[in-house]
């Protein structure tokens, strides 16, 4: 009986070997690096100040995501409206908030008191605490990106679905809520998941206005003990935990939507 011999792939083996050796060398270099004190990393990994920063980061991201999604849906609907004024305003909003650096937006909201000393009956600095300024900045920015994602999702739903809903006597709002948006969801979730991962990492930018997030907490400690790299490693670990959990959740959600929407992407 003849033996089956698969095609030889020497270059594939060589490339794999190079990548493996490079990764191993890098890991050893970091692990054995005399400038990294692993006891410091271990001591601060679960320190109360760090964990508090972690909680702030999670709350910031969740609040901004809720605000961003709400604004995103509202602006996407405006973008598709009959009124040129609403369409124009929604386009302007997306243009402004996607076209300027998030860092600038955060600094703007954090320093709003320089522009308006009072907001109605309140002093600006009492209302716009660093945390509130962070939520406002991240939420408005997120809304601009979400509006584009939601708009693309709605546009992906066949026009005939809306016609059929209208022909059955549904109002615009009802047709959107019961027929169009549920189907748009399958298209919206994957990019929205990526957007949320970006948002989780973008929360670190609020450290410039002392937003109290994870990176702010790590920087506060490292500016006292000068262990910059160690505390960045502490923060890095937590960011990776958060983004990994998010990816997992996104994956599960997509699987669920694929099942419920068996009709949308039929795969027999």
């Amino acid at each position, binding site marked *: 009986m003849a033996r089956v011999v698969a095609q030889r792939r020497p270059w594939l083996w060589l490339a794999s070997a190079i990548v493996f050796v490079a990764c191993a060398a890098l890991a050893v270099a970091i692990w054995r690096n005399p400038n990294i004190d692993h006891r410091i990393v271990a001591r601060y990994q679960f320190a109360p100040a760090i964990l508090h920063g972690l909680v702030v980061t999670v709350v910031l991201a969740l609040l901004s995501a809720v605000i961003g999604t709400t604004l995103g849906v509202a602006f996407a609907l405006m973008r598709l409206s009959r009124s040129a004024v609403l369409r124009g305003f929604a386009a302007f909003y997306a243009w402004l908030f996607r076209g300027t650096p998030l860092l600038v937006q955060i600094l703007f909201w954090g320093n709003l008191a320089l522009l308006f000393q009072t907001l109605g009956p309140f002093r600006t600095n009492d209302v716009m605490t660093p945390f509130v300024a962070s939520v406002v900045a991240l939420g408005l920015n997120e809304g601009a990106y979400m509006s584009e994602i939601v708009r693309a999702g709605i546009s992906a739903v066949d026009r005939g679905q809306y016609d059929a809903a209208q022909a*059955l*006597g549904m109002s615009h709002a009802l047709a959107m809520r019961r*027929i169009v948006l549920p189907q748009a969801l399958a298209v919206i979730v994957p990019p929205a998941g990526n957007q949320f991962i970006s948002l989780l990492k973008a929360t670190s930018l609020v450290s410039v206005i002392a937003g109290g997030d994870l990176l702010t907490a790590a920087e506060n400690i490292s500016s006292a003990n000068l262990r910059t790299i160690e505390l960045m490693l502490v923060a890095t670990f937590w960011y990776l935990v958060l983004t990994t959990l998010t990816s997992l959740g996104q994956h599960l959600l997509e699987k669920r939507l694929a099942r419920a929407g068996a*009709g949308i992407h039929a795969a027999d």
Partner: protein
Amino acid sequence: MSEPAAAPMLRVAGVHKRFRRDEVLKGIDLDVAAGEVLCLIGPSGSGKSTLLRCVNHLESIDDGHIWVDGQLIGYRDAGDRLVELPEREICRQRAAIGMVFQHFNLFAHLTVLENVIEAPVAVRRVPRGEAVRLARELIGRVGLAEKADAYPARLSGGQQQRVAIARALAMQPKLLLFDEPTSALDPELVGEVLEVMRALADDGMTMVVVTHEMAFAREVGDRVAFIDGGAIVEEGSSSEVLVAPRHERTRAFLARFVGTR
């Protein structure tokens, strides 16, 4: 209901429709009596589908009147002007007029049963149990009882169109509009849909059918109207128009169908 028996279920009078510069309907007059089946035939782009979409106000009109069961559709007559009705009123009018589309347009995220109960529950506020009972009966009537829990994408085109008919019937419409209901179907699936439509006609449903199925128009249609260039060229009983057309344009159009059925 107290109207005299002669009052038409659908009356279209002097309807004009423009898309920007393009006049697609140039003064259409039509009457359809209760229980009657009117077939609209004509070349593509002649305005048949647009006329149908005006009847349930999916398209606005630029001039003229459309009445369904004595009610002016889409507008309020304010002497010299026609004022478009508020959304609520338009929705109420549409709920009583069923429509079946060329591409079925079943709600892709809902099962067959959910498609059929959606409008009765969400629009009419029929209790769910009652809506499900009616839906099962209608799905059975179009021969798909065992597919009630399937998603549309699992069904053949012919099955999808039969569900779409059941979905329209669930609103208990006074008038059913069909926009080329078999044009998107594989030839071997056309028969099953026409079968269901024939049964509806026999039950006395008032129907306006845009179609290229001349055999269906001849057998099921009480009357046929031939539309070309946004105007009705010829209208009459189906035998008159299809067998002995008076107009040259009608004859030329029908000549293309000779031998197809």
